[in-house]
């Protein structure tokens, strides 16, 4: 379908069906049935098989008409897109619709106190007892886990196999007695993440995804989806301007809950948008040293943007060249955030000693200065991205390993 045909079809459908008087769930179930909840998903899986350009046309029309779309925000998309690739027909049918309607919030249960960068060293235990999986262990850095209904979980099902081969991927119900999520306070004062404790938590046999022992391969899919998100920048979508109708109130509540962990995310990216206005306002733009650093920042951020655009264009034109866009973009985001914080510090001078509502930009500069360390850690540290780039893109030889052989014999952290 060409853009005009899509525009016509979606407009007609919205004209016939859209009204802000329905409840959120009722409306989103209509979206699901009409095939407009996820037009970029396959036709046999709630979508229309649209490419990115076609899907963008649909989004445009929705925005023009002020129509509410499927639930987007939070880790639910990581879960959905992974299930889309690796889930069984039954799993797709059971789990994908409530993600799109917003009935189910999800979280990601990968990192552990004892395995951060070394994700494949996870030691959360999954044992098959009487036809169901019993889970014991602790996870950490779990955004939104405190209000999640389900989680994507990586746990160890075999301790005698080498580490990558003994992992399995589960879909776990978070609303059960064996699962407890505790907020984890960060250095910037926010508590976006949680620790999740699992004590004899139960997962039905049918919620193992992709077969026993295939957890690492599936986790890799999730991680690459996540990394692309970092490179794009995951600024929370501003709430729609207040519009009359009960559905907008429901949506506002949903967004408020879902976006809550992300309010400081623009700050961890460095708030480049504030650099020139602040430099002009404070007069720092007259300082030749500051000017050099601002220009360096612009070189970096434009370079990153242009490199990503060029990589996307090459993918579209079907070139088979290995394009390192994900990890390079993630590494770039770190470098850019650090440079932006450096520039903000130069611009502010001693005012950077302040934080809170009386400080610059009502505290946003201070929050930037103490939030940027997060971006070079979350979603795989800079050092891990450099390993990925050097080994998978440049083909440099792998580091010699000391973690081969049965997992139970490998040196681990004492937990």
């Amino acid at each position, binding site marked *: 379908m060409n853009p005009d045909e899509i525009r016509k079809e979606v407009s007609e459908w919205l004209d016939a069906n859209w009204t802000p008087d329905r409840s959120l769930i009722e409306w989103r179930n209509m979206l699901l049935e009409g095939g407009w909840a996820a037009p970029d998903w396959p036709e046999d899986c709630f979508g229309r098989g649209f490419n990115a350009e076609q899907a963008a046309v649909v989004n445009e029309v929705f925005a023009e008409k002020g129509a509410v779309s499927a639930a987007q925000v939070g880790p639910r998309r990581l879960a959905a897109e992974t299930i889309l690739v690796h889930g069984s027909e039954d799993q797709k049918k059971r789990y994908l619709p409530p993600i799109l309607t917003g009935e189910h919030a999800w979280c990601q249960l990968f990192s552990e106190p004892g395995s951060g960068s070394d994700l494949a060293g996870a030691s959360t235990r999954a044992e098959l007892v009487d036809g169901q999986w019993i889970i014991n262990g602790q996870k950490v850095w779990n955004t939104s886990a405190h209000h999640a209904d389900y989680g994507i979980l990586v746990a160890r099902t075999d301790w005698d196999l080498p580490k990558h081969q003994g992992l399995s991927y589960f879909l776990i119900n978070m609303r059960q007695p064996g699962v407890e999520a505790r907020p984890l306070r960060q250095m910037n004062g926010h508590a976006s993440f949680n620790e999740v404790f699992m004590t004899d938590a139960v997962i039905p046999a049918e919620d193992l995804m992709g077969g026993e022992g295939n957890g690492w391969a599936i986790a890799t899919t999730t991680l690459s989806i996540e990394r692309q998100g970092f490179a794009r920048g995951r600024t929370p979508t501003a709430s729609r301007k207040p519009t009359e109708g009960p559905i907008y109130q429901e949506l506002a509540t949903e967004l408020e809950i879902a976006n809550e962990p992300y309010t400081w995310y623009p700050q961890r990216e460095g708030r480049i*948008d504030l650099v020139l206005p602040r430099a002009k306002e404070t007069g720092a*733009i007259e300082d030749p040293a500051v000017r050099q650093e601002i220009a360096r920042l612009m070189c970096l951020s434009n370079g990153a943007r242009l*490199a990503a655009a060029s990589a996307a264009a090459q993918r579209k034109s079907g070139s088979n060249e290995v394009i390192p866009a994900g990890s390079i973009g993630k590494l770039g985001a770190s470098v850019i955030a650090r440079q932006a914080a450096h520039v903000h510090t130069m611009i502010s001078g001693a005012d950077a000693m302040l934080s809170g509502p009386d400080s610059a930009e009502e505290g946003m500069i201070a929050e930037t200065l103490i939030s940027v360390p997060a971006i070079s850690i979350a979603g795989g540290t800079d050092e891990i991205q450099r390993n990925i780039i050097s080994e998978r893109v*440049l*083909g*440099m030889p792998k580091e010699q390993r000391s973690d081969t052989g049965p997992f139970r014999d490998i040196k681990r952290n004492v937990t």
Partner: protein
Amino acid sequence: MQIEYTEDQEQFREVVSRFLQAKSTPIDVRRLMASNEGYDQAVWQQLCGEVGLAGTHIPEEYGGFGFGPIELGIVSEEMGRHLYCGPFFASSVMAGYALLNGATEAIKSAILPDIASGDRIATLVLDNLNNPEKVGSVLKANDEHVVSGTAPIVVDAHIADLLIVAASTSDGLGLYLVNADADGISIKPEEALDPTRKISRVSFDGVSSERIGGLNEESLNLTWDQICNALAHEMIGGAQHLFESTVEYTKVRVQFGRPIGSFQALKHRCADLLMELEFAKAATHHAAFCLATSEGEPFAASMAKAMASDTYMEAARAGVQLRGGIGFTWEEDTHLWYKRAKSSEVFMGSAHMHRERMMKMIEIAPSHNTGEQP
């Protein structure tokens, strides 16, 4: 505006690349850098005649191929990769653009076809290679078109037939045409840090010249941008060669019983360099796409040159360092590119100058943000 090369442009790159791979090997480069002329006439004639590269960006009405800054960028990038030694940059790029932007119709029709065909070699005489604002501070022409003063760095003047001279006059910056063998001109070959790009000191002791036009602030800056676009492409090509050869070296060099490329200290340096290179390459290609349609950020060319300057030197430093002692020898080829990187770093403005030039443009056009949305 374009964001990637078209298929035709990729094919064009293939043609250029094949030619240079055969005609500009490190052995050729070493032979030419040791010679006085610094270029191979037979190869230059083939390059101009059979392949037609000297007229890449020169309009068809003046005997060229009528392509633009994108195709010129492709040629320059491949020349930088293979460290091509010859008057292409001085004659086609520098003199060519100055004539296109500042000369009268009659002069363009008279001279550009010879530049495009390579029958005559021209060079652009600028008295300052650091900053467009300072051009014309030394070379002066009086109302009788008599040029005086010295340009300390002129690329390929020693083999030029024609000098296109930018000299200040009572009515702004004038362009003058002089034969290289005219009375009162002294062309003294200098020792160049980068022996693959020959440099002369050119002095004018009251030389009677022909006024052929002039460059105002806008056309001088456009000329500077166009030259920087080609130069940044050349630099990115060289940086890519250095980077690729260095990464390959770390895969085969064994120390402590393993390839040195398996050490994280080296892997991480290479990963950082790849990122810097990808960004600089994207910004450089973008500069050409902007110039081709006169759209986009007005500072695109300066951004490209600033990034290319830093990145080429970073690749050159890594090229020597990761090879260790052998990288510091004359016998190994890395120093050829290292010297081109160092020389290009400051040619047509350092990264520092170009960053300040960017900031000035941003202040004039405040709508251009820093590249990322909040």
